[in-house]
């Protein structure tokens, strides 16, 4: 690292067993001024207990409105190497799978044109290239696209869709999360690159209710795998679990939320009519139990962090649907109905979850053309303030009907 740089506070973060980001950045500090001055500014933040980055800044590549986050140091005279320190979001491959050949090409581009620092990966899923100058953005974009890569989303647009490992390495996957992520990303490039929504719209795809991408909490549209028929049971494999001495009663039967599992001897019986597909027994007994054959997914809308009206989990809007023969058209149709209604009636900086809360689920369902279902609520309303739309008139004739 550069000899003249003293970072006594950051040096403390080189101790201990967890891998140190400071040691790593220091390994770059002799190579470029970005990293040297990043360490200098961060050391100052640690001394003063505050950040020294300016608020945003509109930068990007030609023809795109998203994918680059402008960032400038508030102390450019002191730390000129980070006077510009923009972020480039690169759309990750489905499931975050890489080959070394492919990622090395990106690392070479990034070392030539930026700080050489990354986030693998950002919160939404993108590969984040952390820290470059405005004049480097267009060359980076050209170099990336020449190798087959493109930018992700930012601002009020479709954010880069992401998914769990899915059928690529998980026996629980109820639909092809990688294929759907790829299809939606490719189908909505315009919505991804050119912000024109009320606010951000994140899509995350998890293959089962274990929800490894946190779709229920972190995505405006969570597409979560589920099945409708019976759990598939391999009794011979179950008997092996019993023979292994596993505490089946304590670890499985007693923890079933609906009490629908019974065990007699070495045989497991599940009353699937009461099963809520929570996944616990499948997680404990992966060799004996697996999701049924009638597999698909549920669509949950509206999850978000607290800003502005409070944190929300996604609400079930479509309790079950499936993709047949790789035809994603029904999914496109659903997404476009949702976007159209939100676009027309939502307000600026209003996430879809806040929009649904404001206009009511009933109005939203009507707006996108879906019928209500008890699978969409914890319980029916417990107040009597009902907006009746049908009523009788004096003459006895039925009046208002839509």
């Amino acid at each position, binding site marked *: 690292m550069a000899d003249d740089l003293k970072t006594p*506070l950051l040096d*403390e*973060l080189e101790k201990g067993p*967890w891998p*140190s*980001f*400071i040691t*790593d*950045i220091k*390994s770059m500090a002799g190579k470029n001024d970005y*990293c040297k001055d*990043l360490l200098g500014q*961060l050391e100052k933040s*640690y001394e*003063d*207990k505050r*950040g020294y*980055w300016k*608020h945003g800044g509109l930068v990007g590549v030609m023809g795109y409105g998203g994918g680059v986050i402008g960032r400038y140091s508030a102390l450019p005279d002191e730390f000129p190497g980070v006077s510009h*320190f923009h*972020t480039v979001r690169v759309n990750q*491959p*489905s*499931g975050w*799978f*890489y080959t*070394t*050949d*492919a990622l090395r090409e990106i*690392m070479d581009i*990034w*070392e030539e044109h930026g700080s050489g*620092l990354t986030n*693998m990966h950002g*919160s939404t899923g993108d590969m984040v290239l*952390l820290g470059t100058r405005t004049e480097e953005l267009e060359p980076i974009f*050209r170099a990336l696209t020449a190798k087959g890569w*493109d930018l992700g989303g930012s601002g009020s647009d479709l954010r880069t869709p*992401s998914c769990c490992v899915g059928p*690529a*390495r*998980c*026996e629980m996957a109820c639909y092809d999360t990688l294929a759907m992520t*790829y299809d939606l*990303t490719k189908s909505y490039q315009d919505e991804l*690159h050119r912000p024109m929504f009320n606010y951000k719209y994140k899509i995350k795809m998890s293959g089962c209710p*274990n*929800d490894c991408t*946190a779709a*229920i909490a*972190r995505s405006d549209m969570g597409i979560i795998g589920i099945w409708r028929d019976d759990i598939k049971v391999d009794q011979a494999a179950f008997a092996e679990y019993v023979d292994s001495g596993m*505490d089946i009663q304590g670890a499985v039967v007693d923890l079933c939320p609906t009490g629908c599992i019974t065990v007699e001897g070495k045989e497991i019986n599940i009353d699937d009519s009461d099963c809520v597909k929570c996944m616990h027994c499948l997680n404990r007994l992966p*060799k004996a139990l697996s999701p049924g054959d009638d597999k698909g997914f549920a669509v949950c809308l509206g999850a978000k*962090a*607290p800003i*502005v009206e*409070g*944190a929300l*989990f996604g609400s079930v809007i479509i309790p079950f649907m499936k993709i047949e023969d790789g035809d994603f058209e029904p999914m496109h149709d659903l997404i476009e109905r949702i976007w159209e209604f939100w676009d027309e009636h939502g307000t*600026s900086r209003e996430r879809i979850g806040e929009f649904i809360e404001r206009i009511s689920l009933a109005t939203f369902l009507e707006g996108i053309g879906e019928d209500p279902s008890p699978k969409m609520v914890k319980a029916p309303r417990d107040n009597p303030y009902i907006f009746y739309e049908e009523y009788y008139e004096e003459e006895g004739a039925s009046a208002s009907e839509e």
Partner: protein
Amino acid sequence: MATEAKRVTDIGPPQYEQFLHPIIKDNYGKWLYHDSIKPGVLSHTGPAGTIFTVRCASPRLVSVNFLRDIMDLADKYSDGYFRFTSRNNIEFLLAKEENIDPLIVDLNAMGTLVGGTNNAISNVVHTQGWVHCHSAATDASGLVKAVMDELAEYFTSEKLPAKLRVAVACCLNMCGAVHASDIAILGLHRTPPRIDNNALPNQCEIPTTVASCPNNAIRPTSIEGKTTVKVDEDKCMYCGNCFTVCPAMPLADPLNDGVSIWVGGKISNARTEPMFTKLAIPYLPNNPPRWPEVTDAVKKIVELYAANARPFERVGEWINRIGWEKFFDMSGIEFTKYHLDDFRHAGTTYRRSLHNRY
């Protein structure tokens, strides 16, 4: 003279199949089951054979140097195939079981740890902090490093009652989505924005700024003939939404910014429904570089949970079983007026039954 390549746009990400290991490609959608070999090592088996996964920690903020070291190991042990998880771990995908132990030796030699599977603390989802964000109330990478140095043994073992998910977000925007983690570390501001009345009229749109406040605390005003805004400080809850739309209203306050601790959230549907995290400790000071008050508090909660929860009980499930009064009693964490919700739907958190433990 070199001709510049034609400019292309909107090509999207590369097709993922080219990045899949041949065993994964052959077993795609046909996996039969998985096994846990030891902490950080899994095997997945399908009709076309078994793939072994070795999972290691990553600081997430990593350089090309770190990644090239990782890729050298992937070339050496996993045919050049690897992936990242949704919690920013790195996974090597091995065809040969005999490569597991040498890979682990090399990973440990390069300064990282293998683990994060099953009943472990996995990698910490976190945000940018002072490294890259304008609205951070604390650092994120440093907090994660300090906390995980203390908790590393829970990453490399599977001795907890259930999996434990820790997340760090450096302000209420929560890019790290800490609102559904077993333990969440959340940076927060505690004082209203300081308005730069000279800059505001040029930098900010007044109606947008006024509308940004969830508590209607912002009003237009005029100072020396210039239109700007004022903040009703009694109504301000320091959410920072105004700063997002108006750069002339910064909240950073080194004297008062700090960290809060939240517990009991979960994402998965296993056994119980997904749950939000709930407030445990309203404020701890920013004390870089190692945040001793924060690491101490988190470690105590983890150890209390490890000693008292039943097998497979997540932190929130454990607390729901024993009751919040007992959680505060056992942990010694003071219950204050700040623990009482006063935002939208606050009443839904009030105890509206006689189901109390005495």
